């Protein structure tokens, strides 16, 4: 599971370099996310723009990462592709997470 992390001031930008987060890799995703978020930051932004497909196990894994980080360290999302967006919308998880438009970080300077 390839996940890249870059620090931008108080923000840790984490990019999933895989095209799926599904039942076959949900556990690896959670483990790898725990490793990369050991780098201290105020917030974590998860870039899902490479991810074309996410199932309910993948969704559960993203929720688990959010809970692991705790309320003091928000996990925001960006770059949701259409099918991923559909899963978040239908499960109403789009109301739980802050979802930024793609390129939001660059636009924010």
């Amino acid at each position: 599971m390839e996940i890249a992390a870059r620090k931008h001031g108080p923000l840790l930008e984490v990019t999933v370099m895989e095209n799926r987060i599904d039942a076959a890799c949900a556990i690896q995703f959670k483990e790898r996310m725990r490793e990369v978020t050991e780098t201290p930051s105020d917030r974590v932004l998860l870039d899902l723009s490479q991810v074309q497909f996410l199932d309910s196990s993948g969704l559960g894994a993203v929720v688990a990462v959010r809970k692991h980080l705790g309320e003091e360290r928000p996990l925001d999302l960006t770059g949701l592709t259409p099918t991923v967006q559909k899963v978040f919308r239908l499960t109403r998880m789009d109301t739980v997470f802050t979802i930024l438009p793609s390129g939001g970080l660059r636009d924010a300077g």
Partner: protein
Amino acid sequence: MTLTSDPASVRAALERLFSHPPFSDLDADLRGTAEIVMAEILNNIVEHAYAGEGGRIEMALQDGEGGLHCSISDRGRPFPLGEPPAGGLPDLSDDLPEGGFGWALIRAYAEDLNYERRDGWNHLRFRIGPGLPA
């Protein structure tokens, strides 16, 4: 298509199915929907019907009137209540749930869902609309 019941085989089967004709030619939106529904059903079979012990899954998918017609069969346990779950969403207001979304996704998109238990097999049939453009 026959596959063995484990998460890696499910992923490989879905990739094989949706990245080759005829289903790679589907409208991207419908393809995404179909892949979500099939993934959730197959993962449920792996996790619950076969309870991680593995087993055979048969699936067939074809385009026809009203959309994609799918059938998925396995020889695992039947649904505990004798029928597929109603698929209500878990409560998001309290402690965030990490599961329980699968049947909500299936029920949202699978139309005319039919379940039969026959001769030790579970048979699920359903349709995903609106189908291939004429």
